């Protein structure tokens, strides 16, 4: 047993005195600086009792300290149950199953003042409605057997899609391919008459109307393309008329370069401004027109030279033969399958020429012409309703003509604010036509509904519009503008198809206007005749004198000749046969 030396270790205690009267006071603590109360020194002697331990064995575990603890919450027992409310609301003291109580309560309530007043107030109101119900059956379906009226026609034109030319060239021609899901073919060209020196791209596009970002196909004519037409029934063959007067034929399936092209020596001398298919049967013939004054007929299979040519000279004087000097430049052509031997031609001088291919002499071929516009005729089209009526546009006006009336258009509208660049009839709706102008506006006219202004107008583009081509079904319309944007417009249902009486009404309009023009014409002629008759008496006298003088002259010559004869006879008839009677 070891003994501990206590040694210098003393018990520490601190003694202080407290007065009794200060008992119970709260202790007020003060912060005092530290001062040593006691210090215990280390006892060196005790060091000897201890030894350093080395090495030390220590067990360690390198894990996260974990602990486990479990609790038990109180369980709430849940139970679903329905409540059937049969009757309630009775005050506390009334028992439900006690009839007496119930009745007593009821009677109590009935004697309240409030009750009586309420019931007496509600009475007139309820009697009113009871009577009303008895009087009429208010809730029956009225007008159930009336038929619905035709809905109000709302004209709506909207831009369905826009196809842009990456090179921003103006649209020169638009065509629809002849297939179920028609595609839009557009050609682009800056229409300067000289071929531009800069190597401008001549590429033209075929667009799928649903795909706006890039064309489905491209094709590149050799020169700028002014007109493009799709072959009827064959959706892959395109015919283009170019700026140098030649034709290029493309087969899109084969390549984007022309399959065949006409030779420059046998084609037009000026850019081709119009290109149309003729004759459905063979499907290979088409004809072209150009400002050089001639129309050429071609066969698609053999483009080396044209089948036929015709010089468009109408203003011939006397015996002048048609030649390039007196022919009119062609700016638009119109051919309709309904009249296979005739066609209409719009010229650069503003005439519309009615041509009959079956004529025997030149004057029979170019039967007649109209002075249509001041400036070139940009478009001519026959009406699908009446083939004898056609529409033309040029300068600032659109005019409708009848073949029977030579002097004036049968229907005119106010001049537009800017040049009208293209016009066409609505394909299925007999009474409507559409026009596009240089200020970028698309006009839709309906001659039956509104005569003096367009039924619908739409600002399609900020730049001028220059081409218009409706799809043969009438619902979509391709419109091209001056910076290469091709807009696809959609029309609302009522603008595509005709109403039941439209054709009849249109015919009536046509007949009425033609008759009016005839009447005006005859009246005018009468007037002129009358005027001439009035000035005739003075003219007659002059004529008589003239006649007299002519008679005198004849008589004199006769006498002279007789005298000469006699003399001759006298001389002896030597020179008998030498003189001839004048």
């Amino acid at each position, binding site marked *: 047993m070891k003994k501990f030396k206590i040694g210098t270790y003393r018990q520490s205690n601190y003694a202080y005195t407290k007065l009794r009267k200060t008992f119970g006071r709260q202790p007020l603590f003060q912060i005092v600086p530290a001062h040593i109360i006691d210090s215990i020194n280390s006892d060196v002697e005790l060091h000897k009792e201890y030894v350093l331990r080395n090495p030390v064995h220590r067990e360690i575990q390198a894990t996260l300290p974990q602990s486990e603890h479990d609790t038990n919450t109180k369980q709430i027992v849940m139970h679903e149950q329905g409540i059937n*409310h*049969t*009757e*309630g*609301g*009775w*005050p506390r003291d009334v028992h439900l199953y006690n009839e007496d109580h119930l009745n007593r*309560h*009821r009677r109590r*309530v*009935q*004697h309240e*003042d*409030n*009750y*009586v007043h*309420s*019931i*007496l*107030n*509600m*009475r007139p*109101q*309820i*009697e009113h*409605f*009871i*009577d009303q*119900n*008895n009087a009429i*059956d208010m*809730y029956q379906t009225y007008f159930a057997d009336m038929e619905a009226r035709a809905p109000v026609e709302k004209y709506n034109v909207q831009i369905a899609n826009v196809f842009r030319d990456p090179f921003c060239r103006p649209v020169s021609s638009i065509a629809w391919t002849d297939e179920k899901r028609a595609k839009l073919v557009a050609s682009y060209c800056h229409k300067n008459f000289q071929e531009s020196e800069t190597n401008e791209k001549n590429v033209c596009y075929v667009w799928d109307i649903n795909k706006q970002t890039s064309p489905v196909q491209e094709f590149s004519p050799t020169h700028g393309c002014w007109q493009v037409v799709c072959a009827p029934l064959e959706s892959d063959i395109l015919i283009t008329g170019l700026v140098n007067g030649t034709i290029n034929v493309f087969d899109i399936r084969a390549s984007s370069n022309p399959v065949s092209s006409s030779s420059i020596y046998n084609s037009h001398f000026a850019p081709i401004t119009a290109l149309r298919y003729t004759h459905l049967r063979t499907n290979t013939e088409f004809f072209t027109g150009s400002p050089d004054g001639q129309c050429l007929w071609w066969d698609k299979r053999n483009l080396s030279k044209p089948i036929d040519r015709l010089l468009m000279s109408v203003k011939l004087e006397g015996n002048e033969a048609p030649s390039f000097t007196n022919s009119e430049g062609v700016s638009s052509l119109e051919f309709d399958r309904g009249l296979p031997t005739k066609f209409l031609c719009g010229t650069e001088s503003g005439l519309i020429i009615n041509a009959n291919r079956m004529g025997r002499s030149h004057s029979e071929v170019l039967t007649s012409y109209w002075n249509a516009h001041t400036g070139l005729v940009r478009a001519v089209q026959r009406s699908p309703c009446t083939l004898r009526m056609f529409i033309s546009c040029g300068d600032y006006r659109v005019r409708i003509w009848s073949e029977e009336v030579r002097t004036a258009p049968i229907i005119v509208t106010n001049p537009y604010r800017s040049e009208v660049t293209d016009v066409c009839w609505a394909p299925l709706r007999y009474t409507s036509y559409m026009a596009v102008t240089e200020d970028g506006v698309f006009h839709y006219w309906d001659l039956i509904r509104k005569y003096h202004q367009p039924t619908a107008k739409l600002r399609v583009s900020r730049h001028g519009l220059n081409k218009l081509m409706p799809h043969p079904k009438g619902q979509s319309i391709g419109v091209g503008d001056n910076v290469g944007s091709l807009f696809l417009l959609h029309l609302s249902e009522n603008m595509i198809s005709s109403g039941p009486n439209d054709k009849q009404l249109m015919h009536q309009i046509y007949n009425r206007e033609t008759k009016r023009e005839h009447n005006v014409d005859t009246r005018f002629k009468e007037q002129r005749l009358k005027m001439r008759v009035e000035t005739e008496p003075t003219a007659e006298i002059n004529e008589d004198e003239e006649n007299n003088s002519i008679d005198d002259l004849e008589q004199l010559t006769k006498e002279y000749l007789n005298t000469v004869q006699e003399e001759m006879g006298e001389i002896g008839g030597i020179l008998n046969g030498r003189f001839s009677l004048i």
Partner: protein
Amino acid sequence: MATEVEETIKRIQAHKGVMGVVIVNHEGIPIKSSLDNATSVLYAGLIGQLTEKARNVVREMDSTNELSFLRVRSRRHEILIAPDREFILIVIQNTSD
């Protein structure tokens, strides 16, 4: 006064097509009824709630407005409900004539 009320109710019942009259208080107990107890209790409970809902609808749409009358028309008959501050007068009328 009470007799006047009785007379009123009799008069209403005498109208053509009226099948029954029930007067319900705001707690949902049928005070006076011309139908049997079970039906009256049914009407009282259901129509009381409907009236309350309708009143709330009108009040919420426009706080200056209040429900004046309610008609529930069904195939067989029409229920005319005249609400009041404390009581509800219900008349069931036959409309198919």
